């Protein structure tokens, strides 16, 4: 009996090498999925955190009483995200209305609203990009692992039937190999599911903040438009 135990190598590499070709493919695929999901998780969490930080910073500057034009000039040549991206998009539209003939106040408000909506949508899309991959890994990973396990157990039973030996020492290594696939699948799927839920909630929160900022900013701009329109009418009247 000790001799038989010595023969069976139960290290991870041995488990992988003994497995059937299809089970091997499943294991490799699941390992790649795990690497990918963790890459997405790390990148997403960094991106989310930096976005939240920049949004806080922008909010501080925006409400500090600085003139909007100065703010615009400070930000326009940078890559922006979050509030800054909305601000730049709206301000660009705003300035474009005044750069030309100075006409076009009538539909400026609607245009600004549209631009804000579009940039919100773009920001949210950027936030939620690749979350689908996480969701897929979380939901499908266990099934793939289960497929590998079932296939491994199937081949194990076939070899048992062929060798006509039902002792546990013969059955156990094959089952261990088969279960290894499910273990990898769960290791990949569990963190993917947890972080998917977290990121979806965070993205929703950021979207809410963006929308409220867009409403506020559009209200400010609309007041400005009305004031300008008033001055223009007054000028026209005078």
């Amino acid at each position: 009996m000790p001799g038989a135990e010595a023969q069976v190598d139960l290290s991870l590499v041995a488990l992988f090498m003994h497995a059937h070709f299809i089970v091997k493919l499943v294991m490799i695929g699941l390992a790649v999925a795990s690497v990918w999901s963790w890459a997405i998780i790390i990148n997403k969490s960094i991106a989310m955190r930096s976005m939240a930080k920049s949004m806080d910073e922008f909010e501080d500057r925006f409400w500090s009483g600085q003139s909007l034009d100065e703010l615009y000039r400070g930000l326009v040549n940078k890559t922006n995200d979050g509030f800054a991206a909305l601000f730049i998009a709206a301000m660009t539209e705003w300035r474009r209305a005044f750069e030309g003939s100075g006409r076009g106040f009538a539909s400026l408000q609607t245009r600004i609203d549209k631009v804000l909506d579009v940039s919100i949508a773009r920001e949210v899309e950027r936030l939620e990009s690749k979350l689908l991959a996480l969701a897929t890994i979380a939901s499908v990973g266990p099934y793939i692992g289960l497929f590998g396990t079932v296939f491994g157990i199937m081949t194990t039973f076939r070899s048992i039937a062929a060798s006509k030996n039902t002792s546990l020492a013969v059955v156990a290594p094959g089952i261990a190999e088969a279960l290894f696939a499910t273990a990898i699948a769960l290791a990949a799927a569990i963190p993917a599911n947890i972080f998917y839920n977290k990121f979806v909630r965070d993205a929703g929160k950021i979207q809410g903040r963006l929308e409220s900022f867009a409403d506020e900013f559009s209200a400010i701009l609309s007041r400005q438009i009305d004031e300008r329109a008033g001055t223009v009418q007054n000028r026209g009247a005078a």
Partner: protein
Amino acid sequence: MARKLDTLRSLLDWRQPGGFVSVAGHAAMLIVGLAAFSSAKPFTPAQEGVAVDVISEREFNEMMKGEKKGEKRPEPQPRAESVSEIRRNNEPGEAKRDVAAEPVKAEPPKAEAKPEPQRQVAALPPPPVRPPELKPVARPPEPKPQPEEPEDEKAELPTPPKRPDPKPEPKKEDLAKLLEQKQIEEKRREEAKAAEDQRTAEENRKAEEKKRADERAAAERRTREDREKREKEAAEARRLEDAIRQRLLTSREAPSSTGATGAQVSREASLGTENATGRRLSPSERSQLIGLLTEQMNRCLSIPPGAIPRSKPIVALALGRDGSITSGPTLTNPMNEPGYMPYAEANMRALRNCAPFKIPERFMATYEDWKSLLIGFDPSEMQ
């Protein structure tokens, strides 16, 4: 294509280190896994449970019946039931007499004694027989008679000296006479010698023949003796058998034994056996005991008036060796009949109040049988 390039570029972007970190983390996990799962720890075989039988005290006593303090001797000694110089390993039994038929041993020694001298006689002849067998080696003396012929030639040889005779004849007749006389003497001597030789040879031959005849006779005698001896022995054996059969047939005593004897009577009690049955109460003893108990109980009994039911309450109780009640009494058959419960309870109260019952010593051996009892109180006896 562009998207693929974008994802590849994102791997190299310092703001998106996820790819690197993930690959490195998984490599680390793989190494840790290899170290942790390098070898499976084999199970330590579980200790098998020992089957235990639950046996009652009585069963245990039955098993251990016998002298509990009896020492088990290292070497089993033959059992001796009475003292005697001679150790006899008879079957131990109750009867005090031996089996009558003792083997008839007086005659056989005589029968054996007779053939023995015969055997000696038979054994003696062989020594004289042996030498004839050796004779062929001693035969060389026989060729001796053959040289007789050359001797005859020798006898003739002296004749040649006759030839020189003519020479002396012409010289002196005296000398010739002397020579002749000498020759005659020599001849006579040689003839005598030859005769003697012939005689010895003949004697040898005769002795040999005689020995052969003796041998043949001895062999014949031996076979005859053997046959006689065998016949005699067979006859004696037949006679002996008849005698024994006669004795056995005439004996009318039953086979019996005086028991084993030895230098000391063994005083050991037999040790406990596994299949013995413990002593139990006989039915009469049981009724005696219950009678004793009810008699003692009746002294404390006061039955409420009118509480005489028709049914008979049966009460279970357990007793100690000293007659005390160790558990119960409990009513085994409660009923709704009027007066039944007061009657049963009065009896149980009486049992409790008279509690330490006096139980005679002779019941102690069967305690295991009566330590739990069912007692019926017949109301008809009360009326």
